[in-house]
């Protein structure tokens, strides 16, 4: 994490107003708001709210206030408009869980303007995916890419729908990008709680799984720096510390084969931001053996390595088949790639790899 990102998070999160103010001033000195990085930009509403509570006048005050107002308006309208599809799912008794921003706004952020929300993410039981797609279509949501609908559900983790207002809804049948094997998500359905979003009754993950998902998802590399996960995780811990079951958290870490990632997240939350995480969790995490595949997958997901998208596929596939021999994994790889890239025949695999490598080079 860069110095300016850490200062920004400390300005938002530190309990001591004087420390918060000092961090803000140092951050403001080294930041040109005109050229702010996207990940930091998404934290400006929370920063504005914190500073306006403890500071009379502060650098960038009116522009930060404007950014807060922008996201207050955008989030409020997004939540209002997604109400309709949530009601449709409820009326049709589709079992679903609201994930990420929607869940956090429903239960952890009382101020609807401080946590920008780009889309609505819902997890639907795989048995109800086809029915949900029908309902989405009849409610004016269309897949961003029609071909994505035919992707083998075991290979991908979600598909994106758009409505006429340009709003995005991600329909998940797996919660975590890295964990798409059979049964990977069974625990999510038993660790939920009720909440209300835009006046609609919904299910969200309970605090333990919410925190786990936030950490697992947050450490992935993103075009925008994903430091927001720290603010989200700290909100969950501070608001629901007593409800977090660290034994379940540990079980999830082990079963999802994400020990390496979760250890890094826990270290950041404890050491840099003083999160109340028990020592026993660290002791137990240290006891879990970390496979080479898990470590490599984390590194490639959180970095910008060469041939990233091809490597990611290999490691995700290998993580799901970790108990199989290398030979068996290699034999099964073409079928996996064909499914995940939605290719008609195996002959298309090599050209697809070349295209993805070229696309990555173009990005670099």
């Amino acid at each position: 994490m860069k110095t300016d990102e850490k200062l920004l998070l400390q300005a938002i999160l530190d309990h001591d107003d004087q420390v918060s103010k000092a961090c803000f001033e140092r951050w403001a000195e080294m930041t040109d708001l005109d050229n702010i990085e996207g990940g930091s930009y998404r934290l400006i509403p929370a920063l504005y709210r914190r500073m306006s509570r403890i500071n009379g006048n502060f650098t960038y005050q009116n522009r930060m206030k404007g950014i807060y107002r922008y996201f207050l308006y955008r989030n409020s309208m997004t939540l209002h408009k997604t109400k309709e599809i949530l009601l449709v799912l409820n009326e049709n008794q589709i079992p679903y869980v609201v994930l990420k921003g929607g869940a956090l706004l429903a239960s952890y952020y009382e101020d609807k303007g401080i946590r920008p929300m780009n889309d609505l993410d819902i997890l639907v039981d795989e048995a109800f995916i086809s029915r949900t797609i029908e309902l989405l279509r009849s409610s004016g949501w269309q897949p961003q890419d029609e071909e994505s609908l035919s992707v083998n559900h075991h290979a991908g983790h979600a598909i994106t729908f758009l409505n006429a207002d340009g709003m995005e809804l991600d329909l998940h049948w797996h919660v975590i990008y890295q964990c798409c094997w059979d049964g990977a998500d069974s625990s999510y359905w038993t660790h939920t709680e009720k909440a209300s979003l835009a006046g609609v009754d919904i299910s969200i993950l309970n605090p333990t799984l919410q925190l786990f998902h936030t950490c697992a998802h947050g450490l992935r590399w993103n075009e925008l720096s994903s430091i927001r996960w720290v603010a989200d995780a700290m909100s969950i811990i501070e608001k629901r510390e007593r409800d977090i079951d660290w034994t379940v958290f540990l079980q999830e870490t082990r079963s999802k084969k994400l020990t390496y990632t979760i250890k890094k997240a826990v270290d950041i939350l404890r050491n840099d931001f003083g999160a109340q995480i028990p020592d026993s969790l660290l002791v137990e995490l240290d006891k879990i053996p970390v496979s080479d595949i898990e470590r490599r997958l984390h590194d490639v997901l959180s970095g910008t390595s060469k041939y990233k998208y091809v490597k990611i596929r290999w490691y995700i596939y290998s993580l799901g088949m970790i108990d199989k021999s290398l030979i068996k994994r290699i034999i099964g790889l073409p079928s996996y790639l064909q499914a995940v890239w939605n290719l008609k025949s195996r002959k298309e695999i090599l050209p697809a790899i070349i295209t993805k490598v070229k696309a990555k080079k173009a990005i670099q």
Partner: protein
Amino acid sequence: MNLRLRPNEPNVISEPMEGELVVINLETGCYYSLNESAATIWQQLAAGLTSAEIAKQVFDGTGYNPEDLFCKVDSFCQYLMDEQLMVASNEDSNKVAAPPLGLSFIKPIIEKFADMQDMLLLDPIHEVNDKGWPNEAK
């Protein structure tokens, strides 16, 4: 007139911030910014006071002509109804004793932003004036 109003929830939300109140009509998509006097009237209406009670109790002694004060508060309330931000209320239950403002009364101003599809395309850092979004730089 003596109007008793309440916010048109859940279609309308409001959020106070630094000397202003932001109100959003979720049905029409319109965005409103209320100055301090307007925000005070909004909050007192939401607390159960009538327009006459607000004029008398809240702004009494602020050095303003009482009749003019009634008139200004009433016309502001009428605007809130016209914009469907508030609706008539029969409830008297939440009424709280309103302290006098202790400030000079300034005309309640509500600024309306209706073209929000265009406003959302505005970059809140680079395309706004020194008041910040949604005030577009000319």
